[in-house]
């Protein structure tokens, strides 16, 4: 039997993902919608012998043409021919949630099931909903759910099955507007009636969207009715608006809410109409203009404490395990070349990066916890005023913080931002944020050269990196075309996330790290191994790696460094930890490094390592999230900035007598 398609639509933060997970379990697939970087999640479940493909639409507040997410959701509802549309609504804020529902109904869909989520929470707040009455008023089945506790799921599956098999005749209610607005809707409908366009889309929906000046529908009208057809309609709308003295979209939105308000009075009664008391109390502290920032600093300090306290031992353990694996394997490989390639190249290189997996996973676990808790939205609010000055939206703080762990998932997380410009700028500056790999370089060098002052020195590198990142954001946002999106964000109520969804969420994100990083790093590890072992091993002066280093030596001299630094930096492109291991190979021991370089040189090398280029995995991530050009530009810009900073620090240092 063919699979039936179920589309899952709803606002962000209503528990759509929880319902998706509960329906499909682990049988899910994450990809992108064709042509855009909007995540597409699909999963499968079976009920009463029928298989269903669940498509999780992007969480949206409405279905306008103003954002990619909304367009993706809308186009799927209009053209994707889903057998059933499950509209997840939040029982604790029905008024706003039904706005999207009304837009879905206006599309003329007659296969909708409403999943009334968080019903337990609503009851606790004193909101009483007569579900049967609600279903009768809305004209579609309504299933009360408490997705967190898994209640109502079987009933939801029953309704989905019934709608998919045509057992329920629906009569969804559509909003009625004031007589004057209705007259205009009718007028435009008449103009469109009988055209090929009207055969493809519901007439009333087209008319309302035109009154709201929906760009995509205007394009459709132009395509089907020609430019004159569109002009005729728009001239009419201009006249209407002049008569009203107000934009029609404003009038329609206001009246839609009035309509919804009247509807809800038929099946809902409020106990206490205000928000959650716990959220109120907590927000008094967490979004306070002064205490909020202190709390934020403490929270992120806690996150890093947690990640490193548990992650570092695991990382060392894994790294030891890979070394043991290499040692165990070595005697079993007879061929010298093959042994070198597998043991030093692949296990040494890829193992080194894979050993960071526990850190990445724990970081995502902590950040997913904060996100699901509702705290990340608060951080975006706190940072909005500051980041906006540098051409970044407040929400960009999330990729920036993630970058401290690993820039690969950080770059990928930029896709949650509202527009292309914000995304590009955020991706562009992200590689400047020192990831955990660079933390290992920074702490190693600081301890080696500065002993007791190492924490201060390490901190100065972080300050430098963030300053460069912000300055670069300020600069580049001036040249990237496109408007900045006005800031508006929902602050969801605080909710302790379920362990299962946390693990699923973190696993999904960190899995991408292993997949994306793993493939490039495998290639990179092989290249390093080849360059440092051919035609003769590194250390003899004749390897390709050393020859490349010597080639760059004149350039490195500008910042007081030599060919050895060039070789280390070259290998650092594959993974930043390589900078230390390469120095180790070339000099032989940490003491030898300290004897060969002045502290100022050590500092310059640390600063340059932090700023000079995104690692290969990050370049790959920027390429796949934006394009090759943007990845190349980011890389070139970083090389330039690192050179300038390196030269400046060296010459300033020498002038101050530190050389």
């Amino acid at each position, binding site marked *: 039997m063919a699979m039936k398609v179920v589309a899952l639509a709803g606002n962000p933060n209503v528990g759509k993902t929880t319902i998706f997970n509960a329906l499909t379990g682990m049988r899910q697939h994450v990809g992108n919608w064709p042509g855009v970087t909007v995540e597409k999640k699909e999963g499968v479940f079976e009920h009463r012998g029928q298989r269903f493909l669940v498509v999780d639409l992007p969480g949206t507040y409405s279905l306008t043409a103003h954002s990619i997410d909304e367009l993706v959701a809308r186009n799927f509802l209009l053209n994707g021919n889903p057998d059933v549309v499950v509209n997840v609504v939040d029982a604790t*804020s029905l008024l706003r949630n039904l706005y999207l529902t009304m837009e879905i109904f206006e599309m003329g869909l007659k296969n909708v099931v409403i999943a009334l989520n968080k019903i337990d929470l609503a009851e606790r707040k004193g909101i009483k909903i007569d579900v049967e009455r609600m279903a009768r008023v809305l004209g579609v089945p309504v299933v009360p759910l408490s997705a967190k506790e898994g209640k109502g799921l079987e009933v939801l599956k029953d309704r989905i099955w019934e709608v998919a098999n045509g057992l329920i005749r629906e009569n969804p209610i559509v909003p009625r507007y004031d007589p004057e607005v209705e007259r205009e809707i009718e007028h435009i409908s008449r103009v469109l009636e009988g055209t090929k366009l009207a055969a493809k889309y519901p007439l009333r929906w087209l008319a309302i969207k035109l009154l709201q000046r929906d760009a995509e529908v205007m394009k459709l009208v132009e395509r089907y009715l020609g430019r004159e057809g569109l002009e005729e309609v728009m001239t009419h709308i201009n006249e209407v608006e002049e008569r009203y003295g107000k934009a029609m979209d404003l009038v329609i939105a206001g009246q839609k809410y009035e309509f919804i308000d009247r509807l809800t009075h038929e099946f809902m009664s409020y106990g206490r109409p205000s928000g959650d008391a716990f959220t109120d109390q907590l927000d008094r502290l967490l979004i306070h203009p002064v205490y909020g920032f202190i709390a934020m600093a403490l929270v992120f300090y806690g996150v890093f404490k947690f990640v490193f306290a548990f992650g570092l031992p695991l990382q060392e353990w894994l790294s030891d395990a890979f070394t043991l694996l290499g040692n165990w394997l070595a005697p079993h490989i007879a061929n010298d070349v093959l042994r070198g390639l597998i043991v030093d190249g692949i296990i040494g290189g890829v193992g080194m990066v894979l050993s960071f997996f526990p850190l990445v996973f724990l970081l995502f676990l902590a950040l997913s916890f904060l996100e699901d808790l509702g705290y990340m939205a608060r951080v975006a609010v706190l940072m909005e005023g500051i980041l906006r000055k540098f051409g970044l939206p407040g929400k960009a703080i999330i990729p920036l913080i993630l970058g401290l762990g690993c820039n690969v998932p950080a770059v990928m997380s930029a896709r949650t931002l509202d527009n292309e410009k914000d995304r590009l700028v955020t991706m562009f500056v992200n590689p400047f944020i020192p990831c955990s790999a660079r933390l290992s370089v920074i702490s190693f060098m600081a301890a080696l050269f500065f002993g007791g002052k190492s924490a201060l020195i390490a901190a100065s590198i972080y300050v430098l990196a963030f300053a460069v990142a912000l300055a670069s954001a300020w600069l580049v946002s001036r040249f990237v075309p496109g408007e900045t999106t006005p800031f508006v964000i929902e602050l969801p109520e605080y909710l302790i996330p379920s362990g299962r969804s946390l693990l699923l969420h973190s696993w999904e994100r960190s899995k991408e790290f292993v997949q994306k990083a793993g493939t490039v790093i495998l290639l990179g590890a092989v290249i390093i191994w080849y360059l440092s072992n051919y035609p003769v091993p590194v250390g003899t002066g004749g390897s390709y790696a050393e020859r490349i280093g010597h080639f760059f030596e004149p350039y490195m001299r500008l910042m007081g460094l030599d060919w050895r630094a060039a070789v280390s930096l070259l290998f650092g492109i594959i993974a930043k930890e390589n900078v230390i291991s390469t120095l180790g190979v070339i000099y032989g021991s940490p003491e030898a490094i300290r004897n060969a370089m002045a502290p100022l040189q050590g500092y310059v090398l640390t600063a340059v390592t932090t700023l000079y280029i995104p690692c290969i995995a990050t370049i790959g991530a920027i390429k796949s999230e934006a394009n090759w050009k943007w990845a190349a530009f980011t890389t070139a810009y970083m090389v330039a900035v690192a050179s300038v900073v390196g030269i400046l620090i060296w010459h300033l240092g020498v002038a101050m007598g530190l050389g």
Partner: protein
Amino acid sequence: MVMNMIVPLSELQPGERGVVVDITGGSTLRSRLYAMGLAPGVVIRVIERYSMGPVVIEAGGTRLAVGKGMASKVLVRKI
């Protein structure tokens, strides 16, 4: 008299309430605000505001943070 009471949302202090009467500014901005629950006739309460940043409000049981520029385009009648 009533006209005097109409102010931009950005000028409301924490704790003050108002009814949305008009939203100026581009259609992208307007449609985003409608969908998030900020439309003519809706009662809002200011929770927090930042001198250089957004205004945090409650509207219809939901909390929203609205950027400063955006908040100056939402006109409300104080109540």
